[in-house]
């Protein structure tokens, strides 16, 4: 995701709340500290299909909001590559 972002592609990473620190640290390491992160409840592994669908239901509106930001619908522009 960081590499895609550095190449100018808008991108976001989906992670659970328990891995947000790691994701934030790695985004800094790879030079894109403001990489967009979509955070979901932990865990993701070991879930039944229904529980995975619950996670997906959390992601979808957040992803839609991110895309709205990128397209200007929410009045916020992506800052582009670092």
């Amino acid at each position: 995701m960081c590499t895609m972002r550095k190449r100018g592609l808008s991108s976001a990473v989906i992670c659970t709340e328990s891995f947000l620190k790691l994701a934030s640290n790695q985004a800094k390491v790879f030079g894109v500290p403001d990489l967009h992160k979509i955070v979901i409840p932990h865990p993701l592994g070991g879930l039944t299909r229904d529980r995975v669908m619950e996670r997906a239901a959390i992601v979808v509106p957040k992803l839609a909001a991110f895309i709205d930001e990128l397209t200007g619908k929410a009045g916020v522009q992506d800052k582009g590559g670092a």
Partner: protein
Amino acid sequence: MSTAELRETLHVEGDYDAACDVIEQKGWSDGLPVVLPTTERVRAMLQYCDRPWEVPIGKIAPRYGHATPIRLAANAVMAGCRPEYFPLVMLAIEAICDEAFNLYSLQATTHNCSPLVIVNGPIAKELNINGGTGAFGPGRRSNATIGRAIRLAMLNIGGGTPGFGDMATMGSPAKYTYLVAENEAANPWEPLHVERGLPAQASAVTVIGAESPQNVNDHESTNAEGLLHTLAGSMRSLGINDNYHPLRAQPLVILSPEHARVMADGGYSKLDVKRYLHRHTQMRLGDFSPENIERRFRGKYEKYRNASLDEPILLGRDPEAILVAVIGGPGKHSAFVPTFGATTAVTRALKRHDGTFAGSVEEFRH
């Protein structure tokens, strides 16, 4: 050779305890007190470095911090290393930074792996590294502190801090120090570094992204087949990472000298041992839980998508994937060392900066 100076120093008011407190507060320790990395001690460590002090020998994930000799020397001092240990610290760091080792994943994973360093060649004797009784500890300064220096570098340079860059669910005692020598004198076969392509007189490290050793007790078997039966049974395990990376896994078997001798006397070469273990550690797809079958094996690997429940699950792609070392002293205990799975063992020879094999750490001294 470098004439670079140690430019940046940290001044701490107070005594040893105060300095240790500062180091702990800055997150520069593994939790144990450290030897203070004074300018004099770091400079003494660098007396055993034959390359520029400020040129990285690798980048340590997940921070990808530059592993310069100066930084490594500070960590080696903090770990308690004698200066003559430093060439081996540098060599092990080079090895774990090899891309094939996959250090980023080893550091950041929830699995409890840590680099196991197996030392071969004359340097093991020169530095008094234990490969015999109690090789995994405690007791020897070389085993304890060289391994600890590697771990401190992974923390302080690599950023493998628990909860931030190291997400191991429960960690491992092997994350403090994990270094042994192979017991070459008691090995009935070729040593590990020779098997992996180096001359016998070379000194080398082999790094393996491993769990802690799991003991395999067999006091009763008097022949190779009996011992191998016990070993194979101990290696068939549903929950090890190696099962989940069947095309890449390199699980390690550590044979005690007495077990290895029985196998060799029974006519088994090291490759014969690997062949037996590879054949007899096979499990069936149906041995795993239904969700592991569906979600892990069928979902991830094309070859299992429509496979029957009798499809073999191999421990390693082929017999050669199983690593075998001979370590330890008298006794009837061998060990199985599961690995992270998504990692490849790396062997590196101790060489001078000009690329020639080094016969002694004294060749690095200046």
